[in-house]
């Protein structure tokens, strides 16, 4: 952890009405690494993502992306930073009046000068990768939740982003599909070397993929550690989380140890 982090949150606080959701979040995300945020539902994991994306302003604290305070830079610089992003929202946020094909093609059409033919090639390639050929002309409302997620992933990856944000990429997928998703993820990451920030509940599985795991609890990132260290952390909340989510592994180790 000696290099400058690509993204840094410094003491980020956010309150909605009477409820303080984020109570001073500190988190560093390093280039080329995969950081996974875990934690209970409704505690602000998606909110952290939205702060990094510049969609929500913190009440206090700073969000630095490549050294720039995302809430202080101008529209143009913000756009330049965001053009390196690939984002999958928790609800996929597909454009519901466009077909699957047009959804994935949109970033190419609006941000590049690619010809329709090239676009067709790239889009079909990405959709194949996500295993959803044959749905090109369907509308998002005609897809299942898991399919929507995969279309969202295809759209997030279509411009080969430098930094990807995936909010629960495998929620709503069956086990085989989610394993496949992680394989695809692993493959594309080792090929493209992007920085990734993933929110996930797939606990033991995600540890294989993650370089760092961060637990959000009580409005604070309790700690951000490599998976092995995370599993043996002395932090009481992390300990409890590990015990709860992968109890049997933990206990068997205890018995053996």
């Amino acid at each position, binding site marked *: 952890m000696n290099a400058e982090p690509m993204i840094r949150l410094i003491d980020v606080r956010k309150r909605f009405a009477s409820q303080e959701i984020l109570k001073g979040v500190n988190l560093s995300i390093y280039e080329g690494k995969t950081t996974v945020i875990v934690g209970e539902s409704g505690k602000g994991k998606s909110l952290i993502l*939205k702060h990094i*994306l*510049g*969609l929500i302003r913190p009440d206090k604290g700073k969000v630095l992306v490549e050294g720039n305070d995302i809430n202080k830079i101008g*529209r143009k610089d913000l*756009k*330049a930073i*965001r*053009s390196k*992003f690939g*984002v999958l*929202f928790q*609800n996929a*946020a*597909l*454009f*519901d*009046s466009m077909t699957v094909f047009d959804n994935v093609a*949109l*970033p190419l059409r*609006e*941000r590049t000068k690619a010809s329709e033919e090239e676009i067709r090639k790239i889009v079909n390639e990405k959709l194949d990768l996500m295993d959803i050929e044959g749905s090109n002309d369907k509308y998002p409302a005609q897809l299942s939740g898991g399919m929507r997620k995969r279309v969202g992933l295809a759209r997030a990856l279509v411009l080969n982003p430098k930094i990807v944000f995936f909010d629960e990429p495998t929620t709503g997928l069956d086990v085989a599909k989610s394993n496949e998703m992680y394989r695809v993820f692993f493959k594309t990451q080792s090929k493209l070397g992007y920085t990734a920030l993933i929110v996930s509940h797939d606990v033991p599985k995600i540890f294989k993929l993650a370089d760092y795991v961060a637990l959000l609890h009580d409005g604070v990132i309790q700690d951000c550690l490599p998976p092995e260290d995370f599993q043996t952390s002395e932090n009481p909340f992390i300990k409890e989380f590990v015990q709860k989510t992968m109890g049997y592994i933990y206990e068997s180790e205890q018995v053996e140890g």
Partner: protein
Amino acid sequence: MILLKYIEKLGDLFLYYVDQAGRMGIFLVNVIINIFKLPYYKISHITKQIYNIGALSIFVIIFTGLFTGMVLGLQGYNTLRKFGSEGLLGSAVALSLIRELGPVLAALMVTGRAGSAICAEIGIMRNSEQIDALECMAIDPHKYILAPKFIAAIISMPLLTAIFDVVGIFGGYIIGVKLLGLNEGSYFSGMYKDVEFQDIYMGFVKSLCFGLIVVWICSGKGYFVHLERKGGFGAEGVSRVTTNAVVLSSVSILVLDYFITSVLI
């Protein structure tokens, strides 16, 4: 204590409206900047919106225009006959349509037909995070979604108004000439004589302003649905904001109409 609370509430409300006005102002400036900013859009973005806002409104406009012209013919004929000047019917119908009723009624119809649709569409995009998704793709929603709608509304409104006027004049003709037996020549020759460039100019300026008002209020209300005071979440939030937008834009049309008339008359 209760009084203090009341004043505090009033202050909150006041701040909310100032905030909203500021937001809408900045929104308008942002969209206008984006209309002129390179790169220009694909023509298909705009034609699609012209189809939605303009072409799909034509039927309503023709229908209401016809009946407005007919009632003007009927009322005008009966009133003018009292003064023995039925011959002025043509100019009376044409002038009231071109200067006043055409732009105003066309704008009200477009508010109901297209304005509400724009507001609901953008409100839903906001609430289902589609606008956030666009921003994260570094695609400016002001440019991609809003600018084409603004351009389409500003192009469509004068054309729809012109259709309304022509159909209305024809409606007056049906009633005045065909039904009540007025002389056909006097209906049209009076019109040629009395309608001046000034009148058409006034109608044109009004229709442009109303086009802008409708699309600005309706899209702005939808765009900021999440910041609504009474909560802008879900389907109910969108439906409430759509109603608000239609009412606000109808009222603004009538108020603005007075001011434009008082300046241009």
